[in-house]
């Protein structure tokens, strides 16, 4: 069934179709409508789930950890400071190997106080052991929640669906809501082998000496490597059932491009639009959208950038005193594999718009330069 909906509600529908059993969340702009709609759906008994009200995001994640430990499919959603407050427990959820799925509506970090989008909130959680999927449409948001549970429950690692504040969260567009029967066929109920059971008591997460700690960590790392295999497998499986495909990276006109843009989130969507405009004028430009940041798709990135003469990475985030964070990742993937100069642009922080013209200006600048004259370029910034 097709329905015009905002990105926040696409998350709610994704969670409902995934038949989540426990939802615990604390409201924060721009995430609020996600849990508003979910609480209505639960109150109307259209979804058999426990909705646990809490006093903070830290408690929301704690409740999800408890629920998931007991074998329930658990869900939460947050943004910015709320995600930062969860930080300690993000490590716990991943370390305890709990396949919790959460949505993070990208909102820039304060101060100065802000409600608009950038990626520094989710990227600050890059190393917590959560998968991260950056979406570019409301359809992708809904579909990603369902796919994320499938992958997460296979490899026992948690997953974060990431979407831009307002540009997706509050933007209405047509979304095809899949039939519940199809989703049920694709996503079986969560059957947790290691769930807490009073009739078969176990203790998890107890004091672990240096003799064994690393063995837990290598298992997490291998699970993330396996997650990449599963994500690719599920891209095919999902397409078979629902007719839509989501790969870890999405190349657009990269094969013969002299300049390849690397983008994520809604900036990737606008970049695709800009590429079409530039192609019409005969410019050989392409775009590589990075959808999956963790696990990081090294091989795919090398493959799709191998013909590029120049690479321009647009980061809607910044690691102060270093570069954009996607740029760090891409450069490390290319080290020893590519001689193409890499240009890094910081754009759209705190919700500043990234227009097609913004992207075309970046391409024009890159065209003029043989190699980067600076480590990074700040786009359209006032001095």
């Amino acid at each position: 069934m097709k329905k015009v909906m905002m990105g926040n509600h696409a998350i709610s529908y994704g969670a409902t179709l995934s038949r989540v059993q426990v939802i615990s969340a604390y409201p924060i702009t721009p995430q609020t409508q996600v849990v508003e709609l979910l609480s209505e759906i639960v109150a109307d008994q259209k979804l058999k789930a426990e909705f646990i009200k809490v006093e903070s995001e830290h408690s929301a994640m704690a409740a999800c950890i408890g629920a998931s430990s007991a074998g329930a499919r658990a869900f939460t959603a947050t943004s910015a400071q709320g995600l930062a407050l969860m930080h300690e427990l993000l490590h716990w959820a991943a370390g305890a190997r709990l396949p919790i799925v959460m949505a993070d509506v990208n909102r820039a970090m304060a101060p100065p106080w802000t409600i608009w989008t950038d990626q520094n909130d989710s990227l600050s959680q890059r190393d917590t052991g959560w998968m991260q999927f950056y979406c570019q449409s409301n359809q992708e948001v809904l579909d990603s929640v369902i796919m994320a549970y499938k992958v997460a429950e296979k490899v026992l690692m948690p997953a974060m669906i990431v979407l831009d504040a307002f540009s997706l969260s509050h933007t209405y567009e047509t979304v095809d809501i899949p039939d519940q029967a199809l989703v049920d066929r694709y996503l079986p109920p969560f059957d947790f082998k290691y769930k807490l059971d009073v009739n078969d008591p176990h203790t998890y997460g107890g004091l672990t000496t240096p003799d064994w700690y690393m063995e837990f960590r290598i298992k997490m790392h291998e699970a993330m490597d396996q997650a990449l295999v599963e994500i690719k497998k599920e891209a095919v499986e999902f397409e078979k059932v629902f007719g839509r495909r989501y790969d870890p990276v999405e190349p657009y006109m990269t094969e013969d491009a002299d300049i390849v843009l690397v983008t994520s989130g809604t900036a990737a969507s606008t970049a695709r639009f800009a590429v079409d405009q530039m192609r019409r004028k005969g410019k050989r430009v392409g775009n590589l959208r990075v959808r999956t940041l963790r696990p990081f798709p090294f091989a795919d990135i090398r493959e799709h950038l191998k013909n590029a003469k120049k690479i321009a990475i647009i980061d809607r985030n910044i690691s102060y005193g270093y570069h954009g964070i996607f740029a760090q990742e891409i450069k490390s993937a290319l080290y020893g594999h590519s001689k193409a100069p890499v240009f890094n642009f910081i754009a759209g922080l705190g919700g500043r718009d990234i227009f097609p013209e913004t992207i075309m200006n970046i391409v024009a600048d890159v065209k003029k330069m043989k190699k980067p004259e600076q480590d990074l370029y700040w786009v359209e910034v006032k001095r």
Partner: protein
Amino acid sequence: MVEIRFHGRGGQGTVIASKILADAVSKEDKYVQAFPQFGVERRGAPVFAFIRIDGQPIYNRSKIIAPDHIIVVDPSLIDAIDVTEGLKKGATILINTGRKPKEFKGLGRGFRIFTIDANEIAVKYKLGSKAAPIVNTAILGAVPRIFDFVKLESILEAVRDGVPVNPDDNVAAAREAYESVQGV
């Protein structure tokens, strides 16, 4: 691709109007994207909403700065802000007012101006209160009369599904607005 900007004041249902228009357009299997001015809305303050309509998927996700047309839900904004900012030449302007289109020549040359007294229609059908009528469904009824991207039937269907109360009165208001546009 058609890009339209709505001008209203917080509390008038401007954002909902853009959403219901998106519903109507979507029923005709066109691609659509509707969004508010991203920020914090306050009752009575100027608000904006935007809509993009196309026959193919819409990838541009930036704000609309040069709209093809505008819809002015609250005519008092014409004296308060520049509603024609960035507006393309040859644009159509729809204004909610009892006045005649020719009275708005001051907005500039090269625009096609239409008016609809959505307040009067909303009051007639008891939508909202007399002091603060909910005018968005009446405005939407005028849209298919002057634009060719959506049919009246789709608007009426979307209004019926999209309003929280009094669907019959809202549909009747939209239908009456369709018949009452001035300037056609």
